[in-house]
């Protein structure tokens, strides 16, 4: 951890449950992901000093902003936090420059306006746009003003609350680039709250998956995607291919176990479903019902050179062309309930036709088994 890192743990039971602890190094981006009502914005408000939790500790670098045991609570105005609010929270009665100048009230008026202008130039807002009021700016331009206002505070921590939710896809790509460019140069911890997992995975060094006010899993996007802790995390991450199975215990290969693939509903259950040989972490007892997931990277169609892949014959039951991607549903082994979803890009997707029978390969090394919860 560098000397400008964010380290926090917060606990609260009323009015809503909130349990969250994480660290974020300077220059890193921590994304808090969850559905609405998961408590992610509350965590951001606590970090900003807009809400006081029952207990916990928040430290940025050497500064302690909150410590319930030591009775320390630094109010928002003294924290030097830059915050980009959902819907931006720009002052409707002020033009872009004066909105940014609000963060610079400690400077003399003349200097304040020059500095505000510099920050707006930095986020690439033209001088013509700088003198417009928020309602005269597009969503993306308003967003840039909000970012400039947050940065003008010379923050020790940058907080982004669903910052890209209200802009169109094209603007969003530009803003991602702006954020990615600024990230390392700022050299401060950044916490992003979003319900869009793709966005979080694109930008974050670390993900925190929240549900009902508690952290379900935290870690790097790769690890969380590859090994979600449970079915709820898999659902929240939007993992398409989640199946049920029965853990049969260790297989003959050391470090591997046998997993029987079971159809999704009881009517689909096949007592003699296919058996997969997957990595065994030794945490699950033989005979236990399990959930298992396989990421998109672990699925290949037509042919595979992977010796660890399990091969099935599958029928394309649906193929939907969505512009640059095609989403297909394939029924494995002609058994109901054994449906695999595949998202395809590139030239190959043109070959997939509904009703076609083709071989499908599942990389057993990428299969992740989780305890059955519901």
């Amino acid at each position, binding site marked *: 951890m560098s000397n400008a890192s964010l380290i926090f743990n917060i606990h609260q039971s009323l009015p809503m449950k909130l349990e969250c602890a994480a660290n974020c190094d300077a220059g890193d981006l921590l994304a808090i992901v969850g559905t609405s009502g998961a408590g992610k914005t509350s965590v951001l408000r606590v970090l*900003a000093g807009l809400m006081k939790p029952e207990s916990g500790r928040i430290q940025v670098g050497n500064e302690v902003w909150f410590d319930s045991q030591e009775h320390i609570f630094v109010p928002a*105005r003294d924290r030097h936090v830059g915050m980009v*609010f959902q819907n931006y929270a720009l002052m409707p009665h002020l033009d872009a420059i004066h909105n940014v100048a609000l*963060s610079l*009230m400690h400077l003399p008026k003349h200097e304040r306006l020059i500095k505000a202008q510099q920050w707006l130039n930095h986020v690439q807002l033209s001088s013509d746009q700088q003198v417009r009021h928020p309602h*005269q700016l597009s969503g993306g331009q308003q967003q840039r003003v909000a970012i400039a206002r947050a940065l003008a505070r010379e923050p020790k921590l940058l907080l982004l609350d669903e910052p890209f939710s209200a802009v169109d896809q094209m603007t969003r790509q530009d803003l991602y680039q702006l954020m990615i460019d600024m990230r390392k140069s700022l050299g401060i911890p950044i916490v992003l709250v979003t319900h869009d997992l793709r966005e979080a995975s694109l930008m974050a060094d670390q993900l925190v998956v929240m549900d009902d006010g508690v952290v379900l899993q935290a870690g790097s996007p790769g690890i969380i995607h590859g090994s979600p802790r449970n079915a709820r995390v898999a659902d929240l991450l939007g993992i398409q291919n989640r199946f049920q199975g029965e853990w049969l215990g260790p297989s003959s290969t050391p470090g591997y176990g046998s997993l029987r693939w079971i159809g999704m509903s009881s009517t689909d259950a096949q007592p003699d479903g296919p058996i997969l040989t997957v990595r065994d972490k030794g945490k699950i007892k033989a005979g236990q019902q399990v959930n298992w997931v396989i990421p998109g990277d672990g699925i290949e169609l037509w042919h595979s050179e992977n010796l660890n892949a399990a091969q099935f014959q599958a029928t394309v039951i649906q193929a939907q062309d969505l512009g640059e991607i095609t989403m297909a549903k394939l029924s494995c082994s002609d058994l109901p309930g054994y449906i695999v979803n595949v998202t395809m890009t590139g030239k190959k997707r043109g070959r997939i036709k509904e009703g076609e029978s083709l071989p499908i390969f599942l990389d057993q090394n990428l299969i992740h088994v989780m305890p059955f919860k519901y």
Partner: protein
Amino acid sequence: MDWQALGLSLKLAGLTLLILLPLGIWVGRMLAYSNFSGKSFIEALIVLPLVLPPTVLGYYLLVSLGGASGLGSWLKEVLGIQLSFSFMGLLVASMIFNIPFIVQPTQRAFDNVPKQLIDAGAVSGLSAWQTFLYIELPLVWPGVLSAAVLTFVHTLGEFGVVLMMGGNIPGETKTIAISIYDRVQAFDFESADRMSLLLLLLSLSAVAVSFFAAAKIMRKPKR
């Protein structure tokens, strides 16, 4: 035209507004932002002068603040202030019956300030006073302006409470509304006509100015 009565009415309305406006902004803001037990009771109490017949309100003010009351005699003995049948009494009465006119629109205006903007001010490092000055006040001013206009015009035309509390003393408590009544009683319809028309025009222009200003701030320029 009873210029003295008109001058007295304008003085009364101006002073009432001057004292009541900061007070009304403070109470309206507090009621909009805070939640406490008994808030509904206070809100009901504030509305009371609006629904009470002015003569009833005037009567209660007279008996509670008049020389015969405990408070009235204390004020007279200790501070040498007589409230019944005096301009000072009129001012106090005028402030009380105008409370709902100033507090309610102000409270509604503060209610409409998005909480997120206040939070954004705090995160930007603004003190509570700076947040009030640079964020809240510019957003609530149409509401405050209409409250001020309502209060001013209402004081100018109030009759029942003024008559009960102040009586009809020229130069001291005889306001323009009482003067109009006086003239009608004396069958001097020409004077009553002129004064009524003046009051009508004054009220109309004040209301028009407040509506125009509110509409102007609400209207967003086209892109």
